[in-house]
């Protein structure tokens, strides 16, 4: 089986990463009750004999001794990483996996990308190589970062290029947190646009997520739970927010619940590759099926159900509801409306006690209300993983390559242009060595090109589907 390495960059990236590792540990603990180090665990964790000095001897089989996360933690401030190292997850990481600085990037992409990039290049590379050496078949790097800040955005995308050069065969899946409209970082449009160019060029898949959607989802769950509308039947720990353990004891931060949603996204995304199922889906199948053109690799995701009823026997209607919800605007992790935009491709990754007939029934049911691009009228990819998320009977992750991401990009561009026209704060960037105005113009034209591609696809939306003339056989 293959392995993946998580690279968490910046404050946001590390916070999400922390949630991820917590959930991942709990998931494997629930599935693997014998405590044997197996292939499934190995995809995210190493089994290490801590008695061996130095690197810690890796153990490939047998009892679990000490699990170490396949992760590289990078932040140019110490705060979050230190917090992790003092928290309950401290044993999962060791200092060899960390890169920190004390100065911070000052919300400046250029500082993160150019200054820290060149400063830490060798060090990062060495840690990445080390983590890769521990894998016998490294398949994917998961990069978690935010777009608006300095370190995550700047250094995170710097890293992307590095990975591409160093590990050309390993996939680069990027989880990017996009800033909300009322973001408190003034320069976030600059940072985001500059990062976008890098994502365009060097990522295999980007899962764009915005805080606003996450926040809305949390609010909705709170509302549902507190309104008592569903009575006491809602499980106290809803799927997306369950977060007992690691961070529970600490002061509850506003982002915790939101970060948990993202962590769950990553778990569900990889579940079919890690666990058994009647229809497996490996990570490389994601980009193969969902990315028809190299640049159009932005996948909008949704997770359902958001909460689970205590009644374990799911009536089919509930199951069907899960599928319906996955396409509704309210359940997307990005403010977007896939149902009213154009689908290029769609993946349904199902976990738990769901069979192929359930999936087929729902696809047939939902197909009518969705619009697919003319050349991919049946652009569905499905997977069935038999292991459900902890404490739940089933779940669904929908990934959509859909033109509905376009508004997010256009809004970003607008905000960028508003700043850029005034040349506001530009000098902070230009004083960094190697940064020129052309960097901005190139970045914005890269984004424009992307938007243009989506526009062109959108333009075909209401055209009738017709078959093209085929090769003509004489006899």
């Amino acid at each position, binding site marked *: 089986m293959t392995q993946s390495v998580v690279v968490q960059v910046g404050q946001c990236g590390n916070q999400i990463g922390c949630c991820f590792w917590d959930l991942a540990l709990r998931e494997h603990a629930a599935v693997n009750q014998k405590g044997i180090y197996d292939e499934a665990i190995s995809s995210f964790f190493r089994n290490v004999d801590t008695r061996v000095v130095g690197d810690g001897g890796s153990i490939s089989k047998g009892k679990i001794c000490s699990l170490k996360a396949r992760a590289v933690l990078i932040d140019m401030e110490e705060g979050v990483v230190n917090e992790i190292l003092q928290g309950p997850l401290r044993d999962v990481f060791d200092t060899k996996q960390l890169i920190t600085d004390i100065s911070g990037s000052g919300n400046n992409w250029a500082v993160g990308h150019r200054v820290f990039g060149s400063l830490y290049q060798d060090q990062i590379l060495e840690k990445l190589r080390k983590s890769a050496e521990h894998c016998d078949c490294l398949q994917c790097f998961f990069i978690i970062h935010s777009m608006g800040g300095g370190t995550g955005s700047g250094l995170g995308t710097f890293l992307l290029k590095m990975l591409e050069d160093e590990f050309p065969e390993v996939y680069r899946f990027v989880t990017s947190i996009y800033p909300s409209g009322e973001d408190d970082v003034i320069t976030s449009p600059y940072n985001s646009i500059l990062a976008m160019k890098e994502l365009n060029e060097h990522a295999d898949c980007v899962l764009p997520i915005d805080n606003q959607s996450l926040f809305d989802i949390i609010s909705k769950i709170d509302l549902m739970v507190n309104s008592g509308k569903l009575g006491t039947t809602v499980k106290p720990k809803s799927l997306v927010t369950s977060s007992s353990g690691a961070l529970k004891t600490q002061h509850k931060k506003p982002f915790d619940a939101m970060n948990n949603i993202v962590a769950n996204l990553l778990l569900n995304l990889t579940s079919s590759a890690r666990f058994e199922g009647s229809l497996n889906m490996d990570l490389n199948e994601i980009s193969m099926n969902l990315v028809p053109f190299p640049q159009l690799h932005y996948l909008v995701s949704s997770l359902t159900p958001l909460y689970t009823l205590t009644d374990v026997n799911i009536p089919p209607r509930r199951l069907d509801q899960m599928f319906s919800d996955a396409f509704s605007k309210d359940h997307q992790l990005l403010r977007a409306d896939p149902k009213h935009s154009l689908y290029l491709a769609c993946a349904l990754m199902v976990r738990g006690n769901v069979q192929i007939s359930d999936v087929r029934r729902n696809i047939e049911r939902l197909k009518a209300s969705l619009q697919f691009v003319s050349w991919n009228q049946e652009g569905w990819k499905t997977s069935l993983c038999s292991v459900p998320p902890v404490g739940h009977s089933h779940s669904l992750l929908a990934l959509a390559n859909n033109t509905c991401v376009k508004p997010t990009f256009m809004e970003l561009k607008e905000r960028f242009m508003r700043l850029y026209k005034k040349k506001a704060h530009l000098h902070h960037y230009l004083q960094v060595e190697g940064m020129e105005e052309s960097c901005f113009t190139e970045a914005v034209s890269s984004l424009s090109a992307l938007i243009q591609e989506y526009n062109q696809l959108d333009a075909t939306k209401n055209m009738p589907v017709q078959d093209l*003339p085929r090769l003509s056989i004489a006899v």
Partner: protein
Amino acid sequence: MLPADCSRRLVDELQGALDACAQRQLQLEQSLRVCRRLLQAWEPTGTWAWEPPPEPETNEEDPLPACTPSPQDLKELEFLTRALEKAVGVRRGITKAGERNKAPSLKSRSIVTSPGTTASTPPQSPGQVGGHASDTRPTKGLRQTTVPAKGRPERRLPSVRDRTRAGIGARAPRSGAGLRNQHMASLAAPQAPEAFTLKEKGHLLRLPAAFRKAASQNSSLWVQLSSMQTSDSMDATAAKTQFLQNVQTTSGRSQPRLSAAEVEAEVRRLQKACSLLRLRVREELSAAPMDWMQEYRCLLTLEGLQAMVGQCLQRLQELRAAVAEQPPLPCPVGRSPRALPSCGGGAEPTWSPQLLVYSSTQELQTLAALKLRVAVLDQQIHLEKVLMAELLPLVSAAQPEGPSWLTLCRAAHSLLCEGGARVLTILRDEPVD
């Protein structure tokens, strides 16, 4: 559609080839069956013996008699059928739960009981008792048997055989069982009644004396015949020649230049010549002479080949004439005795046996595969020529471009250029937007 005479020729040729293959396959199957049986366990109870001799095609109207089941089988079958009918009856009547438990049990019971009820022989036949006895000291039993036990007829074994066989098939009444016993004594060597395989005890087998005698007599007779052949007495030869001449003269006809059989042999020879010449020409044309010497030699060779081709053609013209001059043959069937195996009538037939020595399975397999491969190639080349002669004129004569012409072209291409294995595609060159 192909014209009728072309159709007939091609279909006939192919069908003939198919039949020949099927015949060979059948021969192989039969000999394989014997081989396989030999390699299975040699059971004294003779379970192998139930296999009936190969029968002609099963009668479609009534397949059951073709199986000729033994009385035992019929009995078993009857039990089964009865059980089944019962089961069905139960199903119809009783509730689901009860029925589901019962039906299989009924079936299985009938199966379980059938051996008991049908076994006409007691479970412990004397032979099997003997088997147990010898089981305890098999080495001794074997040592005994390696010595050809002359005049010590082991009555017990055949009697067991007889009984079991009678119980199973009871085919033709065996005459002279007593005589057989005498022979038997020296026939099967390891006479321990338990089953064994050739692999385990094959090397202990000995041929019976009577057979050995007959076989050696046989081979010496063949040898005598061969030597007789070469030293045919002078006066007999002279007498035969004289007789042939007399027949010719009294027939009141001049001797035809060639008989049909000779023409055919000659054509075959020329066919071979043609292939050889063609190959040689190919070889010569692909050579690139460097100096004048080579150039000269090349020229000479080509000229020589040209002359030879000329001779062959000349010879063919003569044959043509000979054929034309002959009265039409009254040939009752479409194909003449072209298929007549000329083998054995080679230049110098040797009647005495010759040996072909091989050293490993692999070698034998390679040899056989190659032999077949050459035969197949022969046939393929023959078919290729027939197809060329029939199809190429059609393709060049027909009006091009019609769909039927294109169909013909595609088929002809596949048959002629790809050995019938692959096909080409013809696309219309329409600009695709």
